């Protein structure tokens, strides 16, 4: 479609240009050499200035800008990478510290438990010893008491029997004879009481 229009219009323009050729003596203004030198001169001047200014001033600046941006971006990427690595190592350190401290805490707990157990055991042993001592002391006392008991009973028996005899008979009785009798009794009865 566009191609067709293009061709048609070029055809028309060709007609018009023919007309122009007919109408004007110069025809295509492009082929009129009147201003050729002027155009060449101004083209050389403007393009020369353009080239010099662009190549000496502007293009190096743009290229410099692009380079610095590129390097800056690269630097930033590097810095970011470095920081990421840093943070990773720090994270690792942190995790290590945490695991270490966990282990330490466990150790401390275990030690404390062991210590407590030891203390408890030691105290129990001491207490056990004390209790044993007390028990043995008490047993000794009981034994001494048990041994001394018959003699005391004998003396009491002698006294009471002498008192009784005095009151019953009204006469002094020899203590030694009474004690001999009491001894004899107590020996016979003591065997019965104590199972000797």
């Amino acid at each position, binding site marked *: 479609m566009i191609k067709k229009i293009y061709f048609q219009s070029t055809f028309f323009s060709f007609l018009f240009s023919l007309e*122009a050729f007919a109408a004007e003596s110069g025809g295509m203004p492009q082929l009129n050499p009147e201003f050729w030198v002027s155009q060449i001169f101004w083209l050389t001047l403007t393009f020369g200035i353009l080239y010099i200014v662009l190549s000496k001033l502007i293009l190096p600046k743009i290229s410099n800008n692009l380079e610095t941006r590129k390097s800056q971006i690269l630097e930033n990427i590097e810095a970011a990478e470095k920081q990421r690595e840093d943070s990773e190592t720090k994270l690792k350190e942190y995790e290590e510290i945490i695991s270490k401290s966990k282990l330490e805490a466990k150790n401390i707990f275990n030690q404390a438990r062991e210590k407590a157990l030891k203390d408890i055991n030691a105290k129990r042993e001491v207490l056990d010893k004390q209790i044993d001592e007390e028990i043995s002391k008490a047993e000794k006392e009981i034994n001494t008491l048990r041994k001394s008991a018959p003699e005391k009973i004998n003396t009491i028996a002698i006294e009471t029997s002498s008192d009784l005899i005095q009151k019953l008979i009204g006469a002094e009785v020899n203590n030694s004879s009474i004690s001999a009798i009491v001894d004899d009794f107590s020996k016979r009865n003591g065997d019965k009481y104590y199972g000797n």
Partner: protein
Amino acid sequence: MAANPMTQFNVYRIGPEIKVGAFDISFTNASLFMIISTLAILIIFNLGSKKNSLLPNKIQLLAELSYTFVSKMISDTAGLKAKPYFAFIFSLFMFVLFCNMFGMIPYTFTVTSHIIVTFVLAAFIFIGVTVIGFIKHGFGYLKLFVPSGVPAVLLPLIVVIEIISYLSRPVSLSVRLFANMMAGHTMMKVFGGFVISLGIVGGWLPLSFSVALTGLEILVAFLQAYVFAILTCIYLNDALNLHH
């Protein structure tokens, strides 16, 4: 007069006649638009390169995108050896592009629609490329006209054709740009004339064509600048890296 689509290409003197010897170098409308294009390029790229912020503003982005665009175009077609000629090709591309684009504004003058302007540019490129080729390769540059792998019988013919094609480079380069610009502008003028002559009743159709053509011509304006620059790169590539 206004109906004649060729009057838009008329060159006329602005101000007094300036003569250097026998030559007339008067300031004309063509000179005016060359200066306007040059100033526009310089202003835009000066603003675009003034400060270097990490996050470029619009005009800086424009300048840097054009820079990388042309830089990529050169390195793709002519390789790394063409780096010293970057500034020239950049100026060339921008000059042609801005002249073409300023020509798209109504009542302006299109500098590149004149064969003398495009021919001077093309001739300069042709001579420059030839000189570079001879400096880089000496007489070995003439091997450009002898393609490898051609039967000996055909060689004289091929060499003649190659030489003709080489010599026609400036002509094809200049005529391509000039003809494209002239044809496009003439066509737009013709359709504009149709709008007037067909009036309020029938003028809508050529008007819509005219709108569409304006878009097309803007595309052509860019494309021809690009083609001009890329052909320069290709010629430069021939001179820098002799492939034959």
